[in-house]
C-alpha cells in the first residue's frame, strides 16, 4: 500500500520528559489506523507532531506521500490535507457557529476582509446536510457554547470534512458522547474509509476502535509497542495483549512488534 504519511525515528522531549520516543509509523492511503494506548502513552503528543503543532526533536523525519516535509506547521499540515478533530474539541464557546466552522481559515479576500455572507451561507448548508441540525432555533449565528456534547462533536467533525482532508485524525472523538452520538461518530469514521480517505482513530475504548479500523497500533510509554492488521487477530486476542502491555510494557512473543 502507498504511504500517505510516514514518521521515521520521531521523538519529542519536553524538558526532561520524553513524551514520544523513536516512533516509526506509516499510514497508508485509504487506511484507517486505530491508535491505542493508556493515559500518558504519548497519543496526543504524536497527534500534535503530525499536525505541526509540535516540532519533532532533531533526527526525526516526517514524510507525506513519500516526500520529506521540513518544518511542518499547523497551516502547512492543513495545506497538505491533515485535519484533526481534537479531544479538547477546539471550539471557541462564545463565538457563533460559522466563526467556529471557519476558525483559523476564514474566507477572506487578499486584504484579509472577511466574506461573512459566504461563510454564513456555507455553514447554513452544512448544518442541514452534514451536521443534521434540523431545529430552526439553531442558526449559523448560534453560539456554540449552548450546544450539547454531540452537537459540538458534529461541528468539529463537519469542520474537518468541509475542508476536504486527506487524513483525518480523531483524538478521542467519542469521549463524553451518548450511545447514539457515539454510533453516529463511528459511522462517520466508516464513511471516511468509503470516501477513499485515511484516518487515525485514537481512543481508550477498544470496542469503539476495533470494528472500524484496518490496523491497530499500540502505543506505550512513548514508543510503539506493537501493531497488528485487524484480520490477524480477534478482539479477544487483542484484549489479552493490551492487558499484557499494561502490566509488562511489552507485547511479548508477538511477531508484529517491530517491523
Amino acid at each position, binding site marked *: 500500500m502507498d504511504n500517505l504519511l510516514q514518521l521515521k525515528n520521531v521523538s519529542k522531549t519536553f524538558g526532561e520528559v520524553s513524551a514520544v520516543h523513536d516512533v516509526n509509523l506509516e499510514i497508508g492511503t485509504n487506511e484507517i489506523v486505530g491508535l491505542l494506548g493508556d493515559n500518558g502513552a504519548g497519543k496526543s503528543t504524536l497527534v500534535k507532531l503530525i499536525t505541526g503543532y509540535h516540532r519533532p526533536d532533531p533526527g526525526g523525519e516526517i514524510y507525506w506521500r513519500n516526500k520529506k516535509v521540513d518544518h511542518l506547521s499547523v497551516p502547512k499540515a492543513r495545506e497538505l490535507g491533515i485535519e484533526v478533530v481534537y479531544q*479538547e474539541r*477546539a471550539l471557541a464557546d462564545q463565538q457563533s457557529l460559522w466563526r467556529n466552522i471557519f476558525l483559523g481559515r476564514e474566507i477572506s479576500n487578499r486584504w484579509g476582509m472577511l466574506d461573512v455572507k459566504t461563510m454564513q451561507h456555507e455553514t*447554513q448548508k452544512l448544518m442541514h446536510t452534514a451536521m443534521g441540525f434540523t431545529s430552526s432555533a439553531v442558526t449559523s449565528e448560534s453560539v456554540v457554547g449552548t450546544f450539547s456534547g454531540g452537537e459540538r462533536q458534529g461541528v468539529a467533525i463537519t469542520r474537518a470534512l468541509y475542508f476536504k482532508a486527506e487524513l483525518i485524525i480523531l483524538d478521542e472523538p467519542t469521549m463524553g458522547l451518548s450511545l447514539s452520538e457515539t454510533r453516529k461518530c463511528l459511522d462517520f469514521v466508516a464513511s471516511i474509509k468509503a470516501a477513499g480517505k485515511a484516518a487515525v482513530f485514537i481512543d481508550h475504548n477498544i470496542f469503539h476502535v476495533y470494528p472500524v479500523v484496518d490496523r491497530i497500533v499500540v502505543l506505550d510509554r512513548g514508543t510503539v509497542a506493537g501493531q497488528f492488521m485487524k484480520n490477524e487477530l480477534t478482539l479477544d486476542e487483542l484484549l489479552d495483549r493490551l492487558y499484557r502491555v499494561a502490566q509488562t510494557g511489552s507485547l511479548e512473543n508477538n511477531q508484529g512488534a517491530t517491523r
Partner: protein
Amino acid sequence: MDSVAEARPLSPTAKRSRFSRLLRKYALQIAIVFVALAILAFFIWRAPITFLSYDIYYSLMSTTPFFALIAIPLTLVIIAKEIDLSFTSVMAWGMTAFDVVFVATNNVWLGFIACLLAGLFAGWVNGMIVVKLGIPSLVATIGTQFLWRGVVLVVTNGQGLGLSAVKETVLYSALVGKIGDVIPAQFVWTIIIAIVIWFFLNRHKFGAHVYLVGDNADSAKLMGVDVGRTKILTFTIVGLAAAFAGFVVSTQVNYFWPTLGEGYLLNTLASVFLGGTSVFGGTGTIFGTFIASYIIAIINPGIVAAGWTAYWTQLIYGFIIVASVSLQAVLRRRLN
C-alpha cells in the same frame, strides 16, 4: 434541502423567532442604550435648562473623545483577554517625543509623526513583554506605566511645553477645530476611529482572531491562529491611540503637561467594561464602549447641573457601573 431552508424565513413564526434572535444577539447593546437614555432623561428632568440647550452636548462631544479615543481600541485588548494600564503614561510619552523632535527641528509635523511612532513603539513593547516573556499584562503594564511616566519626567525635567506653534498649522483645526461651529473635530475623529476599529473587529481576519484568542487561546493555537502576533497587534494599536489622544488633549489645551494622562485610567477602563466587554475575554463590542464612554462623561456635569454637589459623582459612577455590570452578567447567563 436548500429550498426548504430558504423557504423557512417566510413563515410568520420563523419571522418572530428571527426577531427574538436579533433581540438576543444585541441584548447587551440594547440594554446599554436604554441605560444611556434613562440617565439622559433623568438629567433632562432634573436640569432642563442645561440639558435642553446645545452647549452641554457640544462640551460632551469635545471632552469625551479624550478617553473614548483610547477606550475604543482598548476594547480589542480586553476582548483578547489582556489588559493595558500603561496608556495614561503613553499619552505623555508620545507628547514627550513631540517635545524633543519639535524643539530640535521646529517642525510640528515631524513632531506629530514622532509622537505617533513613540506610542506605536510603547504599545509594541507592552505586547512583546506580555507575549514573548509570558508576563501577565496586568503586571507588565503597571510596570510600563511607571516606566514611561519616568521617561517623561526625566526627559522633560518636569517642564511643560507651549503648543502655540501647533495652533498655526492645519493640524489644529483638523484635530480640535469646530466643524460648522456645531461639532468639534475630535468627535468626528472618535467616530471615524470607532468605525474603522469596528470594521477590523467584525469584518476582518484580525478581528476574528482577536475574538478567538480571547475566547479560547488553546483552540486558536491548535487551529493555526498566530496568538502572539494577534495580541501584540492589539497592544500596539492601543499605544498608537494613546499617543494620538495625548496629542489631541494637548492641542486642545494648547499646552503639554508632563502629567498628561493622569486621571484617565479609570474612566477609560470603566467605559470598556460598562460597554459590555467581558473581562474574561471573547466578547465585547465597539458600539458598547462608545455609548458607555458617553454615559461616564455625562454623569459629572449632570450631577452638578441637577444641583447636587460634585461629591456625589463618584458614588453615582460606582452605582451605575456595579449595577450595569451585574445586569450584564445576569443577561448573559439568561441568554445562554
